[in-house]
């Protein structure tokens, strides 16, 4: 069980690092997916090793997959808008507003 949790933690950390450092929006989206999947691995692992009665963890993972897909689609559509407005998808372009 430790290995699975470590894998999830690793994935989560890679995703976190990617979101914070990537300059390409698609890269950020991919890192976000990594983070969601880390949570999925956690759910399934806990369901298999800790809470063996019931399927809540697995069902939860399914729902997270669906939610992540919906989020990715909206995100990709927004990326398309960004591309139309700036002719590129680097996050550096997006700095019209500052405090």
């Amino acid at each position, binding site marked *: 069980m430790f*290995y699975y949790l470590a894998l999830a933690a690793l994935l989560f950390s890679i995703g976190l690092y990617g979101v914070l450092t990537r300059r390409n929006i698609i890269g950020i989206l991919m890192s976000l997916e990594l983070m969601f999947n880390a949570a999925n691995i956690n759910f399934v692992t806990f369901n298999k090793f800790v809470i063996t009665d019931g399927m809540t963890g697995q069902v939860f993972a399914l729902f997270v997959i669906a939610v992540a897909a919906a989020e990715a689609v909206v995100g990709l559509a927004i990326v398309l808008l960004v591309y139309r407005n700036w002719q590129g998808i680097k996050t550096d372009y997006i700095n019209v507003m500052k405090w």
Partner: protein
Amino acid sequence: MKGFYVAPYLSILIFIVIGIGLVLFTFFLARLIRPSHPYPAKTINYECAELPIGDSWIQFNPRFYIFALIFVIFDVEAVFLFPWAVAFGQLGLYALIEMVIFILILFYGLYYAWKQGVLKWV
């Protein structure tokens, strides 16, 4: 319990190592044997002996993009069909009605996309 889950992967690991090693070894061997005469024509992309036109990094038509988006969303909704199908025997009519409602809502999405003209290849 720990060894039980890790052991089968050992053979996979050995396979991976051997596979990568074999490829690297043959590349290395070829490098030793082959003559080295670089000239510009060799670096051009091979397109059936024609000179390549333009960059190989082309922009895909954005229409593909929208199709891909629609595909992704409908594709992933299928994830809910599998557990439903597995448990269908115990659940009976109620589950059938529920799934019909679910599919109807998805169909509404398709109908909306159709009305928007997204599905038409102009």
